[in-house]
């Protein structure tokens, strides 16, 4: 059974339709990359799954439970965590406090304050530092650690490489690879196509709020995706 089922979801920003009639299933243990141009609705879709954006139509279910109208903080307890675009740390809290609020509000599990700092060793010496004083890469590591420490069954990552130096991006993806190996279910939004195709089991390409192309890793050629990305050819979806 799918861990996440999105059924004919509609999302709006006022009059603007950000996501239209979108259906998607994510199986337990799968890593799905969402790609697409700016304004395709990727971020809005992730925020809706996490509970930060209320759908105007359609149904979201998680592990068989209808979560369409559930508050965001209750979804965290079910096991959904979002690393938001722009990281959104609590700036005046220390790194440790940022992790602690999440650890204490989330689910119990193998990720604790100590194990998550082991997984992101750079955080060890930053524990007592305020989040506002961190570099971009350090902030991103803290943001991912903050999501992990709630022990999610589904991890949503929104543009974790945005604004980071290439070396910092490598470090972030290295830690992610370990999380993926352990069988985590992940939906990530990534602008860098080669990274998306490397890390994901399946690539889903969105255009103007719809899925225009999807396929398993290896099934899709780069040109197919770039065409779909910009809507050059409105190709039908390739079945996974």
């Amino acid at each position, binding site marked *: 059974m799918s861990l996440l089922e999105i059924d004919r979801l509609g999302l709006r920003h006022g009059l603007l339709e950000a996501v239209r009639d979108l259906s998607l299933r994510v199986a337990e243990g799968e890593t799905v990359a969402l790609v697409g141009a700016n304004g395709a609705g990727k971020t809005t879709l992730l925020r809706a799954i996490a509970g930060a954006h209320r759908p105007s139509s359609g149904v979201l279910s998680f592990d068989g439970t209808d979560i369409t109208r559930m508050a965001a903080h209750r979804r965290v307890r079910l096991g959904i965590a979002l690393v938001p675009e722009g990281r959104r740390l*609590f700036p005046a809290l220390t790194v440790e406090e940022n992790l*602690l*609020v999440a650890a*204490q*509000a989330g689910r119990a599990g193998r990720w604790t304050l100590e194990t998550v700092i082991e997984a992101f060793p750079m955080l060890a010496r930053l524990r007592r530092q305020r989040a506002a004083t961190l570099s971009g890469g350090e902030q991103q590591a803290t943001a991912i650690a903050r*999501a992990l420490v*709630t022990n999610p069954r589904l991890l949503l990552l929104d543009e974790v490489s945005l604004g980071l130096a290439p070396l910092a991006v490598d470090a972030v993806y290295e830690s992610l690879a370990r999380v993926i190996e352990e069988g985590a279910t992940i939906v990530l939004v990534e602008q860098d196509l080669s990274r998306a195709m490397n890390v994901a089991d399946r690539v889903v390409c969105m255009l103007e709020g719809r899925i225009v192309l999807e396929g398993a890793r290896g099934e899709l050629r780069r040109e197919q995706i770039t065409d779909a990305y910009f809507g050059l050819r409105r190709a039908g979806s390739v079945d996974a």
Partner: protein
Amino acid sequence: MTWVNDVVQGVMLGGFYGLLACGLALMFGLMRIINLAHGDLAVLGAYLVYLLLEHWHTSPFLAFLPVLPAMLLIGYVLQRVLLERSLRSGLLVPLLTTFGLSIVIQNLLDQGFSPDDRSLGASAGGVATASWQITSQLSIPAIGALTLGVAIVIFGGLQLFLSRTRAGRQMRATAQDPDTAELVGINSRAIYARATAIAVAIAAIGGVFLAIRSSFTPYSGPTYLIFAFEAVVIGGLGSSLWATLAGGIVLGIAQTIGGQINPEYPVLAGHIVFLVVLASPRGGLLNLRRATA
């Protein structure tokens, strides 16, 4: 020496203003709500103590013990039923809601207790009138020292709560970014309700001191709300708790020194200091703009 005395009296008066300002700063810092009913909630606390003392002859401090949980409950329900809904409609609606609440509380108190002047000073016994004579020019009133002591304990306790406890950390996280707080599993509405409960309870403590220091009527709230609000603004708009207490103390000293210059000036002197801080380039007005941006 009279100036030393003025400053000492001002610091103690500032402790009183700090107590009244504490909950106001907490609610503004967390939810950006300016609670215009804050003074009336303080007066409500004083009336509840007064009510108990009519049947139970004891000290107002002892009578406050059962009033404390009642005020916590009132704050909690107030947030859940009234403020939570008004918060959804932007910043202006909570302001109007608490303005209306202020009028409702005043009229209910008028109906229940008549508009007569009351005071808890007599029931407080010696504490209300005792003082320590340090020199011929300097004496320290017991009630002033007690008010300041209670203010320091409450500000210190709240600071410890915010920095060391799980609920306090959640409160600070929610104050900084309520949407993200929800995304890490914090129930922001429950946090808001707890904070308002604490704010209202501390207001009631201020209300008891108000009632011991002077007389009060159902309409005393707004007068004290102004002083509390001035303390919050001088103290940097709830950016830090101790700064709010410091703001109260600055206001208290301004008032006693103003009173020394001319007995008609204490309130005016306080307002002038408030306006200077508000208009100064690095002062409150800038903070206010930033806070509402």
